């Protein structure tokens, strides 16, 4: 049985040409770009090129791109070092209630360190409430961090509006763009973004590499201490193959973005239409329009996500769930609860994120499997029995 991978938000397939571009930097051109001998030249030039490839994708200057080990490090760096830098000015940071754990957990850490955090809620479509965000700003607010697009329900946040507000108030604006970079157009200048995190493997690059964009003029202190790499801002030997792969993947993703998205939206909307039409008591989580082209996140009443996942897995469908049972905790995902879903409905959620190479046949097969699985799981469910009995009565 062939697996159909529909979990692209977890990680994406690396392109063949990306791998090909990386290989020489493991084998022949393995020199350290920080060295000063001949073997450092080609790697140094390659890293420089990658920096420009990435900067070009978001209308930044190459000197504003700092390579890291991934999205989590970038988020930790931006928030922790950023708040340390701004501490004298104020100790308040505002984030959204549906941030990725890399930001959310860091915000709890900041609280333990004596900073004040406000977590602003979203509407039922998972879009941050701008009026509440504005109201949360106080005289000691020094940073706002709101994700560009949500990793679970795919809702795209009004980043330009937040950037404008933050700039007017003299507040640093960071955005976790891990799910958005390489997938939707981003412009750090027109959107007034001060810092932006991204991760290589989410857009066809390798794992273990990411970057943080830091706008010129912001003297963000280092998070990783040590050598003078990355202009003394991020210590540690440069991951040359990773950086090279990420640079090329970024260029390719941005070049193909329009065409890829047109197709993805067609596949996604076909899936959404079929599920909502053919499976009763189902709902789409996240805004219908303001959502990532590849994301379809559903809740099915009366059933639980992990068992759905297992049942789909047996049919070769690889997806993920926001149910608690999948993570070992008691509560379902904070994102699903954040958009107002009751626990029992949040438990029955499935996230489908579509890779570019997916065919319409595969989407139809997935929709058929989903339908079967929901029926099977409902035939086991005492909640569904109770519901049917109540309806009859």
């Amino acid at each position, binding site marked *: 049985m062939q697996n159909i991978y529909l979990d692209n938000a977890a990680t994406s397939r690396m392109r063949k040409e990306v791998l090909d571009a990386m290989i020489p930097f493991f084998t022949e051109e393995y020199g350290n770009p920080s060295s000063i001998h001949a073997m450092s030249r080609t790697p140094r030039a390659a890293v420089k090129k990658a920096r420009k490839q990435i900067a070009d994708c978001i209308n930044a200057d190459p000197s504003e791109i700092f390579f890291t080990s991934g999205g989590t490090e970038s988020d930790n760096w931006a928030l922790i070092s950023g708040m340390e830098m701004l501490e004298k000015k104020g100790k308040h940071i505002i984030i959204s209630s549906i941030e990725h754990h890399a930001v959310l957990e860091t915000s709890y850490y900041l609280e333990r360190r004596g900073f004040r955090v406000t977590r602003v809620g979203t509407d039922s479509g998972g879009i941050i409430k701008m009026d509440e965000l504005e109201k949360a700003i106080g005289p000691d607010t020094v940073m706002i961090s709101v994700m560009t697009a949500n990793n679970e329900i795919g809702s795209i946040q009004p980043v330009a509006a937040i950037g404008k507000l933050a700039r007017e108030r003299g507040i640093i604006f960071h955005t976790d763009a891990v799910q958005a970079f390489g997938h939707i157009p981003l412009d750090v200048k027109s959107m007034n973004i001060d810092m932006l995190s991204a991760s290589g493997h989410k857009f066809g690059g390798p794992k273990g590499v990411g970057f943080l964009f830091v706008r010129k003029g912001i003297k963000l202190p280092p998070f990783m201490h040590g050598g003078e790499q990355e202009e003394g801002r991020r210590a540690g030997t440069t991951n040359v193959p990773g950086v090279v792969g990420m640079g090329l993947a970024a260029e390719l993703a941005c070049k193909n973005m329009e065409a890829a998205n047109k197709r993805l939206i067609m596949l996604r909307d076909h899936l959404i239409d079929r599920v909502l039409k053919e499976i009763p008591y189902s709902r789409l989580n996240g805004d219908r329009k303001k959502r990532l082209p590849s994301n379809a996140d559903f809740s099915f009443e*009366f*059933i*639980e996500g*992990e*068992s759905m996942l*297992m*049942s789909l*897995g*047996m049919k070769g469908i690889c997806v993920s769930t926001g*149910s*608690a*049972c*999948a993570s*070992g905790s*008691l509560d*379902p995902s904070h994102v699903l609860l954040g958009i107002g879903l009751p*626990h*029992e409905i949040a*438990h029955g959620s499935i996230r489908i994120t579509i890779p570019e190479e997916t065919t319409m046949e595969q989407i139809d097969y997935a929709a058929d499997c989903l339908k079967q699985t929901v029926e099977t799981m409902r*035939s*086991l*469910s*005492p*909640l*569904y*029995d109770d519901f049917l009995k109540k309806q009859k009565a």
Partner: protein
Amino acid sequence: MYDGEYSDKVIDHFTNPRNVGEIENPSGVGTVGNAKCGDIMRIFLDIDENGIIRDCKFKTFGCGAAVASSSMATEMVKGKSVQEAMEITNKAVMEALDGLPVVKIHCSLLAEEAIHAALWDYCQKSGITIDGLQKPKADIND
């Protein structure tokens, strides 16, 4: 939960659950767990005049381990006396499934509680007492 962390027995009982369904006019029925936590188990018992469990069926809302634990528990109580059924522990259910991942142990506990709840209902209806059986603590209506 990750693929591969479940034993073959768990996968088997999840894929082909035994004794799914309801019993009309059951001798006892018990429902435990709650939807908020993501697990609800309902067990129906058909008990003959000698106190032997003739039939047992279940319905479960929950993860793969919850479904497999219910399925295994129903297999284990069939043909047993109510006293024997009363003594089936979550550990026994787990062992019969060749183990469960640590975070899923509560699913086997739910199976034990569901059996107890159904037996309690049977005792209430028939005026019989079973040694060691206590009023179920977890209930869907709590």
